[in-house]
């Protein structure tokens, strides 16, 4: 099967039929300025060298590709390899993007970073980069998420960041983004909005993907070194979609590599009970781009639910919508319960406690690996670690 392997975006930020720029006019000039600055930085060897230095010496790249032998043996099928983004400084892949955007913001003369956070991993990574670069930082976080991801709230505060509780709407990630954008629209002169996922008006989805594609670049190289060929399957969880697009992007032209994106199936298929955009959503506009959105018939954004705060969001990055339309990536979802069970299994069998977000990808692999022969291999993006989720494990009766 032939795929058009270039997803773009084009100059107006469209990945095929999805993306674009939908934002209040006050933000449009800053967004244009950001785009110009990003293009200049991307082509500037000194910017790239500084980013590479920090990714290596500060964040801890490259991350290992770990052959999970006991999990593989337990499941009895395809070989399972874990891309260990959970070993990065701050505990998740989010730091890749935050270092990139932080350096860019500094280069643009901005002195203040604002960000949204769901699980708190992006908030912690932003707070960390702000401290590293000597910038002021404000993170918006839904009230519900602050309660269920409390350790990350403390970490952000330790790093000198102001965490603002958002009590509007559903009190989760979507509302934190609304509030972050309201801050940005008010303080555009000195502030950079550090979007944590491959979402938002162009150039954010492209820029965040570019800063995360190192995951796939490394995984590809490591697969060739360790196994001698490309993987048969990639699997990653999809909230906004930054860890998954980061893993997938460099494999898009490789037609033999199957890709699976895993959304949050939550408690069930009813609208409001899950965050499976490709199962229950349809194209619409939220937070800057045209993409799959969970919404009512009247175009109001629906409530979502997931045990994982990082996947609990009504829209998905526009490049994923295009990959879905083309059939290049298969999107599926697993339930809260399946994710929790996967967490326990990985902890007990491999000695790794995954973040609940990443556990969704593990849960999908638990379903698929047994049906694949032992000479096939799967790379799963272990995008973050589960320390932040201990409170949830307790609430859910696992501890």
């Amino acid at each position, binding site marked *: 099967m032939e795929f058009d392997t270039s997803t773009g975006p084009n100059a107006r930020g469209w990945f095929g039929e999805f993306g674009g*720029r939908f934002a*209040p006019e006050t933000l449009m000039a800053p967004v244009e300025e950001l785009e110009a600055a990003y293009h200049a930085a991307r082509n500037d060897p000194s910017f790239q060298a500084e980013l590479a230095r920090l990714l290596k010496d500060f964040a801890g790249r490259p991350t290992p590709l770990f052959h999970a032998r006991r999990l593989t043996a337990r499941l009895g099928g395809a070989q399972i390899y874990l891309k260990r983004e959970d070993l990065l400084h701050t505990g998740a892949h989010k730091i890749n993007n935050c270092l990139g955007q932080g350096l860019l913001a500094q280069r643009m003369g901005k002195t203040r970073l604002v960000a949204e956070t769901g699980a708190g991993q992006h908030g912690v990574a932003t707070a960390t980069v702000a401290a590293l670069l000597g910038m002021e930082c404000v993170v918006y976080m839904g009230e519900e998420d602050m309660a269920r991801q409390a350790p990350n709230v403390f970490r952000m505060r330790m790093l000198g960041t102001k965490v603002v509780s958002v009590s509007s*709407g559903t009190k989760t990630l979507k*509302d934190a983004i609304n509030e972050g954008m*309201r801050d940005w629209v008010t303080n555009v002169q000195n502030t950079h909005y550090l979007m944590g996922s491959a979402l938002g008006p162009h150039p954010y989805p492209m820029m965040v993907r570019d800063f995360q594609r190192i995951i796939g670049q490394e995984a590809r190289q490591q697969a060739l070194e360790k196994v001698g060929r490309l993987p048969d399957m990639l699997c990653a969880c999809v909230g906004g979609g930054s860890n998954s697009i980061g893993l997938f992007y460099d494999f898009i032209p490789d037609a033999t590599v199957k890709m699976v994106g895993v959304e949050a199936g939550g408690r069930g298929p009813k609208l409001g009970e899950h965050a499976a955009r490709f199962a229950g959503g349809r194209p619409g*506009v939220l937070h800057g781009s045209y993409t799959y*959105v969970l919404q009512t018939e*009247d175009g*109001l*954004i629906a409530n979502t639910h997931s045990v994982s705060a990082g996947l609990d969001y009504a829209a998905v990055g526009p490049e994923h919508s295009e990959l879905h339309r083309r059939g290049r990536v298969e999107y599926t979802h697993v339930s809260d319960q399946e994710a929790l069970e996967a967490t326990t299994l990985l902890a007990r069998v491999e000695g790794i406690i995954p973040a609940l977000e990443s556990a969704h990808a593990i849960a999908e692999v638990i379903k698929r690996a047994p049906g694949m022969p032992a000479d096939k291999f799967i790379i799963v993006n272990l995008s973050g670690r589960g320390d932040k989720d201990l409170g949830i494990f307790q609430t859910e009766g696992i501890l």
Partner: protein
Amino acid sequence: MNQSQPTTRVAARFQKLRENGAKGLVVYLTAGDPSLDATGELLLALDRAGVDVIELGVPFSDPLADGPVIQRASERALRAGTTLRKILERFPSWRRSVQAPIILFSYFNPILQLGLEKFATTAAQAGVDGALVVDLTVEEAESYVRAMRERNLDTIFLASPTSTDARLEHAAQLSTGFLYLISRTGVTGERTEISSSGRLLTERARRLTSLPLAMGFGISTAAQVREVQSHADAAVVGSAVVHAIEKRFSHEGPAAIQEFVRELKSGTEVPPA
């Protein structure tokens, strides 16, 4: 660009103001706050208070350009079950009793989900005079503008102090009726002082367009209305009116809001020497 089309109600109103050497008052309220029946009474009250253009807000679940006052109004309206569809159903009855032009003020997704063609057709049949879509940027507006033009509905775009000249010019090209100027960066909401960025923006816009210029964001008193009108053609008041509705409508009724808006309207009158 549309010389052949009949003059819209919005254009006629600004023309009349200009002939009289007068300035205009544009008032925003959220439809369905606290109910669609109340909206009918409030539209009439605004009309009687002498409002020149009414912006009728379509409540949205994620009003990211709005401050707390309009956010709360949206939440009340959504709790009351307000949708774009229901607003358009009720519109003809409001249109029959109100003289002032009424434009819809919406986020893009509800319009997109209804369908651009269906929205424009239904709005035109219902007697809507135009629309302003706060998160629809000029570069993504082509299909929307075409659908609206075909039905002679005004399309109002926003320009901000951060807009470059190129963006300002583009917004003016796609606008009919008037151009909405944002007085300062930030979300909607009342302010005690008007930023000097507003006057500067008006001056830049004058050089690029002959459209009437209405300025909003942060204008909440008759004195501020007067100040804005030293350079713009009309002042837009939103949050202050919505706030008055929130505080006073339930026990004082539409008359109190009419009185409040009449006071704002006095800001458009030439002060005694």
